[in-house]
């Protein structure tokens, strides 16, 4: 684990806060987050490709109501971290997508259980209104920490696993993963056309 991958995970954990907890200025979108993260690893073109593919692949899941889409930041961060370890993008992206799905499941679990913590803070806020600032700060801090730990551990475990597995991977598996990686932008674009259906008016 090099310092640049560590820095990438810290930066990704910060960017992930933008998805829900703070700002929502779209820093966490694949096309914005991935090229920015790629500046740390040095392969900007890989960042653009991962960002575009991530955004297109996740374009059909929107955060409507309580729906929690897979995290574009986690997908990009895991893919770029593994790519920086020397793993081909077609393999790294697969782990990125799996990581994003697992992350959204973990996030769902946290949100379900947060109300216990929240009841405690509600009592505090009612007694002392300024406690709301501390509650928000603490929520941001714990979210950042959780993001960092999950991204770092997942990227590290998958990276080490793939580095061990790489010499045993046959050319056929490489070809299959490349073909699957190839179709990502096209199925994403095919999703975007129906997204603009003119049913509103």
């Amino acid at each position: 684990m090099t310092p640049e991958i560590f820095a990438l995970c810290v930066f990704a954990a910060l960017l992930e806060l933008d998805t829900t907890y703070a700002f929502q200025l779209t820093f966490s979108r694949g096309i914005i987050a991935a090229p920015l993260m790629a500046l740390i690893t040095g392969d900007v073109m890989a960042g653009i490709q991962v960002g575009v593919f991530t955004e297109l692949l996740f374009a059909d899941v929107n955060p409507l109501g309580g729906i929690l889409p897979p995290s574009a930041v986690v997908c990009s961060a895991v893919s770029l971290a593994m790519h920086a370890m020397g793993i081909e993008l077609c393999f790294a992206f697969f782990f990125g997508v799996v990581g994003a799905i697992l992350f959204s499941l973990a996030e769902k679990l946290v949100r379900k259980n947060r109300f216990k913590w929240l009841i405690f803070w509600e009592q505090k806020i009612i007694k002392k209104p300024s406690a709301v600032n501390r509650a928000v700060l603490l929520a941001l801090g714990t979210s950042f920490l959780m993001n960092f730990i999950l991204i770092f551990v997942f990227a590290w475990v998958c990276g080490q696993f793939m580095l061990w597995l790489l010499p045993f991977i046959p050319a056929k598996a490489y070809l299959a993963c490349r073909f699957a990686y190839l179709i990502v932008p096209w199925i994403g674009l095919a999703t975007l056309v129906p997204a603009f259906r003119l049913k509103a008016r």
Partner: protein
Amino acid sequence: MNFSTRLNIFLRSFFLQTGWNYMKFQNLGLTFVMMPFLKEVYRDDKDALPSVLQRYLEIFNTQPVMASFCFGALAKQEEAVAKAESLTKFKEKVTEWSSIKKGLSITTASIGDRLFWGTLKPLTLLLALLAWLMLGVNFFELELPQHIPLAYAISAGALAFFAFNAVSLFVKWQGIRISYDADEKSCFGLTRFDWNKTIYNAKRFGIVLAVGMILFGIYHYLKDLQDIDVHFVARAIVVLFCVMISFVTRKLRIPNMYLYLAAVAVFNIVCYL
């Protein structure tokens, strides 16, 4: 509402979703956003604040950008609650406040989801993709060029970022002012904009961009093609087949990410057969 309070609400609104939970959704965020305003309104009656906060800590959920319309309308109604002269009047105003909170949050969520997540997000994505392709950054190619100017790499993302935020920050800032000044007749300023027409026009523009994008992608594949070889045909068949499958999975409400994961598994099996 003075400028500094409005600015304070605006800045705090970026943390509306902090503490999001499945029981009361954005209740902590709403309390955080409205706190400076509440402190100002109840400056002379600090004992009233705990019971006021209990109302704000109840369930609240809406689209984060359009929530600004709720902030302004709730602030206006809170002033009416604070100025209530009798208990009956107070209860009446509190009931009105609760119905505004519930009704407006649903309406703004509906508009916001369609405008920002359903239209503006995919539209700005297409803008970025087109910008990259026009700058010669071909992300379709799996063999990546190693050196592209840094400005090219950042510019398309920046274009999407500024296009999305120009609209969202404008709505966020203006929403607080408009909803505070407006009344119930104009649905707290929501009727000032023709949201349906805006969404309709944006979607019309979006469909042109989406089709243009697909044609541009096909052109990128075909322009350097000297003669059609077996690799090109194989790739084209695989892509077309997966696009067709994606239409079926969409009907079955299966997200594309699962289609991709299934493709990895299926292609591996096929390669070994």
